[in-house]
């Protein structure tokens, strides 16, 4: 350099995408006259190999000190042109994209379009003049992965990563892995026994030499950045040695405490020392400290007295496990929207108004009724059952605005299994629409409607209330316009899916975002559905949004592949286009610190930016009261100059035929 900038400008026609509304030769002509521009050219498709060759050749022939490609959004081809420039010997960070497609040709027409394209391109030329060559930041990384959530999605992710040869920490909050799928009776549309297809995977995860299973554990804190996350996990004491416990169950039989079973959705009771379900992994009892009569001082100790193998240890302490991991997969799953929120359906106070998961437990062979359909209030076999879809879903005024996606399918399954179970029973399904998009899903619903003679009524239920031992359902069949009243024995609500409790807290610990409904937010809804916005954190399963089992499994595998890509790379690079502190100007006021969505700034006498954590969003730069924070290659001076050039000067006269 030294003799002033020599910028090359390359304007793309993008076929007709740009050229229809922008006079491309005119843009080239105008930019060729712009101060500091040494070369200007155009091409039909600048991103094609011949197009890139034009850029590369010009860099060498004209000794360019910077390049502006006027084309589509930088999210499309910035990398393409930066790589091309690097091949030609120009630092890639001296290449910028002027977006004259999404910002210009697609959204305007008429002569102003060409004028605006010229202004956008000129502004980027001014930016490039202020750019400095930068080098990507290189960093080593840990070769272990953390998977949070031991449901089917998390299990699948853990297995795939471990099978690829990397260590996995699989953290599950409850005493057993298995998640929601372990609670289900049978799965749509094949009516496979849910536990039968799940438990082999659970066992595989527990036996896998590279998977460390941490059940009854929660993520306490996460610090660090892509490739180098430092995680602290709190493992609660189970007071039972899993290696000694032989699942004989004597302890639970003598335990004087009975509390509602979480696994059976409160439809049965468990002791304070319990195993959630027979196939639990790890296969060991857990002493639930909260409900035990007392451990310190010991109030009862009946369980210990009857344990012949001496597995019970009241002195067990909470463990804190600290590990460095390269990537994190979040598969924290879902809960059902609370029945108590449904005022129109009895606020959850009517015993025979249950939700879908409760009905799954009733249908399940291992459930509270051993698979016989009996209603909770009096154990009678219900002869008329009403299923209500979209309970809490698709109701922006009162509840959740979104579709919970799986309810149409599992309601069809519920009604069908009910009819298989109670041959003389009648099943009604109230629905708004049937959404059965999926392999063999539509056929399954049709089978329920036609072969199983389930009464599908299109309409919403207005009210559900108790009348004697009946549950009366008032609704409307919008297809016939008739009011419907059913004196049912049991009502099953297809409650909306919501993110599992604690999702938001976990997201805060990880500095990642939740969408408006609290589900974990992906980096891009189309092109980066598995990634959180923070690099190295991936999303799987229903924590990201309502999903059925195949989707949760696919996403688990997908997230695993993303994680493996990090674990397998020799070193990681990070963009150098990050914030930096002018230490001569920073007073340490720390206004920037809480603004950083990535936790990249450490306060002190002067603020310190961790360039590996910084994603270059610029929030701190805007917040800094004394102008001490700067974005590399995006300084205030550059931005001011860009604005001056973009808004200054006379409009370009363009005559168009």
């Amino acid at each position, binding site marked *: 350099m030294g003799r002033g900038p020599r910028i090359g400008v390359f304007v793309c026609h993008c076929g007709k995408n740009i050229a229809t509304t922008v006079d491309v030769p005119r843009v080239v002509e105008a930019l060729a006259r712009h101060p500091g521009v040494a070369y200007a050219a155009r091409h039909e498709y600048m991103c094609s190999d011949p197009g890139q060759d034009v850029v590369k050749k010009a860099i060498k022939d004209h000794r360019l000190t910077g390049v502006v490609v006027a084309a589509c959004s930088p999210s499309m081809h910035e990398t393409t042109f930066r790589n091309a420039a690097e091949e030609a010997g120009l630092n890639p960070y001296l290449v910028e994209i002027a977006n004259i497609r999404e910002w210009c040709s697609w959204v305007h027409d008429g002569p102003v379009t060409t004028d605006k394209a010229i202004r956008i391109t000129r502004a980027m030329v001014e930016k490039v003049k202020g750019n400095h060559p930068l080098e990507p930041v290189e960093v080593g990384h840990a070769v272990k992965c953390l998977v949070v959530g031991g449901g089917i999605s998390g299990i699948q992710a853990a297995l795939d990563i471990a099978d690829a040869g990397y260590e996995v920490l699989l953290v599950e909050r409850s005493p057993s892995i298995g998640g929601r799928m372990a609670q289900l009776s049978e799965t749509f549309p094949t009516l496979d026994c849910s536990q039968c297809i799940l438990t082999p995977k659970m066992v595989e995860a527990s036996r896998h030499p590279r998977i460390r299973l941490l059940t009854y554990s929660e993520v306490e804190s996460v610090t660090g950045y892509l490739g180098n996350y430092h995680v602290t996990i709190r493992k609660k004491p189970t007071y039972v040695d899993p290696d000694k416990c032989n699942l004989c169950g004597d302890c639970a039989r003598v335990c004087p405490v009975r509390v509602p079973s979480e696994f059976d959705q409160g439809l049965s009771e468990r002791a304070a020392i319990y195993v959630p379900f027979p196939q639990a992994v790890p296969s060991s009892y857990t002493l639930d400290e909260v409900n035990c009569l007392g451990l310190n001082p010991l109030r009862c100790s009946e369980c210990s007295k009857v344990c012949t193998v001496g597995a019970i240890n009241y002195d067990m302490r909470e463990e804190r496990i600290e590990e460095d991991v390269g990537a994190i997969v979040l598969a924290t799953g879902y809960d059902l929207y609370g029945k108590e929120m449904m005022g129109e359906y009895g606020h959850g106070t009517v015993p025979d108004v249950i939700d879908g998961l409760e009905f799954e437990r009733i249908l399940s062979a291992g459930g509270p009724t051993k698979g016989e359909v009996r209603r909770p209030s009096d154990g009678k076999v219900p002869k008329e059952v009403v299923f209500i879809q979209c309970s809490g879903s698709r109701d922006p005024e009162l509840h959740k605005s979104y579709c919970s996606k799986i309810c149409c399918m599992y309601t069809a399954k519920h009604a069908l299994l009910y009819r298989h179970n109670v041959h003389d029973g009648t099943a009604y399904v109230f629905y708004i629409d049937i959404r059965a998009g999926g392999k063999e899903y539509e056929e399954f619903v049709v089978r329920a409607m036609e072969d199983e003679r389930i009464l599908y009524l299109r309409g919403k239920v207005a009210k559900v209330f108790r009348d004697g031992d009946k549950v009366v359902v008032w609704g409307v069949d919008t297809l016939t316009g008739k009011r419907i009243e059913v004196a049912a024995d049991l009502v099953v609500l297809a409650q909306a899916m919501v993110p599992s409790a604690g999702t938001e807290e976990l997201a805060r610990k990880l500095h990642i975002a939740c969408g*408006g409904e609290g589900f974990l937010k992906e980096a891009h809804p189309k092109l980066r559905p598995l990634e959180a916005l923070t690099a190295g954190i991936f999303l799987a399963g229903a924590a990201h949004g309502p999903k059925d089992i195949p989707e949760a499994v696919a996403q688990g595998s997908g997230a695993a592949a993303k994680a493996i890509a990090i674990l397998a790379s020799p070193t990681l690079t990070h963009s150098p286009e990050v914030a930096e502190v*002018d230490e*001569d*100007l*920073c*007073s*340490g*006021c*720390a*206004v920037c*610190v*809480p*603004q950083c969505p990535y936790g990249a700034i450490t*306060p002190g*006498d002067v603020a310190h930016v961790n360039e590996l954590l910084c994603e270059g969003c610029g*929030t701190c730069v*805007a*917040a*800094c*009261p*004394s*102008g*001490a924070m700067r974005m590399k290659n995006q300084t*205030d001076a550059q931005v001011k100059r860009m604005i001056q050039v973009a808004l200054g000067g006379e409009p370009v006269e363009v005559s168009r035929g």
Partner: protein
Amino acid sequence: MAAKPKIAVYWTGGCGGCDVSFLELGVALLDVLAQIEIVFWPALVDTKRADVESFAPRSIAATLVNGTLRTEENVEMVHLLREKSQLVVAFGACAYQGGVPGLANLASREDILHRMSTNGFHPTPPPGGEREDAPPELLPQAKSLADEIAVDYVVPGCPPMPPLIGLLFDALLSGDLPAPSHVFAHDKALCEECPRTREDRVLSKVVRPHELIPDPKVCLLDQGMICMGPVIRGGCGAACPKAGMPCTGCVGPTPNAGDPGLAMISALGSLVRAGEEGPGAFAAEDKLLDALVDPLGTFYKYSLPAYVRTGRRSNR
């Protein structure tokens, strides 16, 4: 022995505090006075405009001007002093950026004169006096010194603090002069000197100084006082925050802060949290910031003429 440097001190539209501030140097003032020759200082020695007019051009080594420019006479005098001086120093907040009298720019000259004298104020000579004895005409707007003449250096503050005045005389007397336009204060913001701790950087309420006895250790901004510290140069030793009063900005903004009001609005906008999430958050934060009475007087207490373009609308 070389001749002592000739020094002039002049006041325009000020309160006199800047003149008094020299006394704050204490014993050190005697050393300074021994090394300079005062050729003009209306507050201290009996010298007249005619004396200045008789000086040779650039014969004064340095002229220190304090006060905002408010009258035609102020303007004439500073042009005269500029001609006779090698260096001109804007001394104090008024000369630097307009100061507290600069807030008068929020009202038109006519409104100000009407308020001073309900019948309107007309400069007239005193009884029996000559026409030139009449009070000078008020300018339409208050101005900073740099709006009229080239300013070489700035000693900021309202009034300038002894350490900053000391820096000026050290430079003048040693001959080791800083680059033009130098401001004799720190480039870092006042927070650097402030002993208060900054932990929970959230603005969850806005209070005025009389509404709160602040915790003596915690950052005033964190306690809801609009402290200009993060935007304003240090050098004053954070005297006000140490005494439990928020910084009002008399030393002026740090070199990269730009417009101090905009910088502060941006910082407050970043810090404010009304404790509400979701769609209502912005409205709740707006409401919280509504408690900030007199934003212009808070953000531009000493600098309105330098940053805020005020109209000439008459309120009458």
